[in-house]
């Protein structure tokens, strides 16, 4: 198998294959975002990420002023399996020339 074929992007999942062992950004349902190193994935976008940072955004409404209070909570997890049905988008690392 030539390296050209290995790096060809014909379908969306090929882009994710090229991100193996790289840090990626994943947006999930219920206002969650992950950044971590992609170690494994399958066609459902189930994934195993390493050195993960999770950011959860919650919006509360102030009882008196009815103002929206946006809170973000962060935590880190060494290794995380992510079920694919919650994945909204996957962004590969930015490649600089």
């Amino acid at each position, binding site marked *: 198998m030539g390296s050209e074929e290995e790096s060809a992007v014909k379908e969306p999942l090929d882009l994710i294959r090229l991100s193996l062992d790289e840090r990626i950004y994943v947006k999930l349902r219920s206002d969650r975002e992950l950044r971590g190193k992609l*170690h494994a994935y399958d066609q459902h976008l189930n994934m*195993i990420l390493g050195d993960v940072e999770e950011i959860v955004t919650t919006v509360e409404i102030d009882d008196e002023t009815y103002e929206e209070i946006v809170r973000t909570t962060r935590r880190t*997890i060494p*290794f995380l*399996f992510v*079920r694919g049905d919650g994945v909204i988008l996957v962004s590969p690392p930015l490649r600089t020339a």
Partner: protein
Amino acid sequence: MVGSYINTHKFLSGFSSSSLYLFIAHLLSLNNPVLQLFFSYFKDLVGKEVTVELKNDLAIRGILHSVDQYLNIKLEHTRVVDQDKYPHMLSVRNCFIRGSVVRYVQLPPDGVDVDLLHDATRREARGG
């Protein structure tokens, strides 16, 4: 040997019909080959401690007892991570979690062989 113990136990208690069903289900799935990277991965993780986070925000820590092709999970020696907030499972020590309600599984660092996972993922990507 664990295997021989199970065998003896089985002969003593007669056939488990539920296993018969699962055996048939497995044969059916062989005719219809499915990619199963994570199924295999979780099978290798049996016996290790994991934390399963559910889509209802419950997090349950326990020893991984078994997994099936839907990634349903059975945990043993379970405890809910925030028991004061979630006392709903105080008297449950073994539980079955439906795969579809899992959001995350926190994996033990010694249960992740990064190189092995990369190879398996590339193989799976070629097959799919």
